[in-house]
């Protein structure tokens, strides 16, 4: 099993969620994060509306654990659905998972995810 962590644009979350479920990938978690990368953002500051450039931007982290053979498909679904072509589209990371347990049944391994 692998854990796939995708840092994406918040406005693309709906598309990614839908793209995944359309292919039958239901289980996932999302977390709001603040990301730093090359992309910059603007804050309008003060009553006279001065603009600041900042480097921390709201992003969404989507996490899902999938069995090994599905990793490539899930990565590519996410990549396509999250893509805009502009700086700030984000990253996808794949990490090893040694064990998975379903709390409700105690099932372990691939069947648990």
């Amino acid at each position: 099993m692998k854990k796939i962590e995708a840092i994406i644009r918040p406005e693309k979350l709906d598309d990614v969620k839908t793209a995944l479920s359309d292919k039958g990938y239901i289980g996932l978690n999302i977390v709001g994060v603040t990301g730093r990368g090359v992309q910059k953002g603007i804050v309008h500051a003060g009553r006279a509306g001065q603009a600041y450039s900042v480097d921390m931007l709201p992003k969404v982290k989507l996490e899902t654990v999938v069995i090994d053979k599905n990793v490539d498909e899930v990565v590519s679904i996410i990549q396509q659905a999250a893509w805009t072509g502009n700086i700030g589209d984000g990253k996808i990371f794949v990490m090893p998972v040694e064990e998975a347990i379903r709390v409700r049944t105690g099932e372990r391994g691939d069947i648990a995810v």
Partner: protein
Amino acid sequence: MDPVSGINTGDTAWVLAASALVLFMTPGLAFFYGGFVRNKNVLGTIMQSFIVIGLVGIIWVVVGYSLAFGPDVRDWGVIGNLHYFGLRHVSAFEPYPGGLFPTVPHEAFMGFQLMFAIITPALITGAFAERAKFGPFLIFMALWSLLVYAPVAHWVFDADGFIAANIKGLDFAGGTAIHVNAGAAALAAAFVFGRRKGFKQEPMEPHDVTMIVLGTGILWFGWFGFNAGSAGAANGQAVNAFVVTTTAASTAAMAWMAMSWWITGKPSVVGAAAGAVAGLVAITPASGFVQPMEAIAIGAGAGVFCFLAVQWRAKTSIDDSLDVVGVHGIGGMWGALATGIFCVALFGGNDGLTHGGGIDQLWRQALGVAIVAPYSFIMTFVILKALDLTMGIRVNEEDEVSGLDVSQHGERAYIFGGSGPVLGIPEAIPVHTDAHGHTDTAAEHMVRPEVGAKSH
């Protein structure tokens, strides 16, 4: 009471207090509506009510008041002339010569009417929440105020207006002139604006129900000024209007809550708030003419009818986003008719259906509604269509997804959501930079040296 001018300090004190209360209703409405929308649109929504205080606050004193309450043009009962343009001839010492509010200065009457003129267009904004472009929105409000509100106010409120004078419709504080009017406009607006992206596909739940209740509390408080102030004096009619106003609101809050309990299994807090507003709407035209026990009937009707209207609307594909039609349109209509049913001649006006007056007054009430509603609907439709064809009234899809706060105003409401509070990081508005490093230039020129990573 001043023996010459007829001005009475007690009446003036009450009208001043009432005017302040009615002004406070518009921020109240801003919160009521603001709580209903999604987080990303709360500032845009609040602004659409708040800025109307600015916009109509100028228009009305310059010209709107004169159109509504100036001496009648050609005695047609259709529109006032420009006699009061720029508030010329509006005395701070003598009463309004048109007969209304005879014991308070004319300028106080004007100020009280100003607050009505402000809140009425603001009510409509609920119909097109979360999708209006700000510039065209302002123009719409200005035109609506002059082309719809001012004439309708003349017809209904001014003693020379044809609904007041000829049809003899009773509308104490604005059921027809304000709520039916705004409700009909809202329906037209919902059609012209069209549905929000994601309508009926994504949940679009209130982002802050406590804000809705805050708005409701302010509205209820302010509505005492609205209704009891419409007596124009601290007299028995004002006192009775005060009591029936709160009674109807109480009953409607309970009724709507009961409906939601019955239908969905839980008594809704949002429902109790919406119900209170529906009750306040419905009692508005009747408040000068009915008695407390009848206010219970009017409130109960408002709670039930408006609930059903809103429930029915939710099954249609009409995106009257904050249910202006269901609450103000239907509530106002019920109130207008209920006035004809329950009115009693005690405070002036006539006896209605239940007081031996037959259906005469009910008929007049219906006629008033039947004139104002289509007028407002058609005018609103035409104004909005014209604006849509020329400038476009709706934000583009990307802006709608980002939300009005960022796209229309360049601001975010809260910095405590998400990781904000722990981290103290404002949620910046991303700059759109393409892969070649080209950046959205509108913003660029005013960007200061970076902060954040480089602080300290």
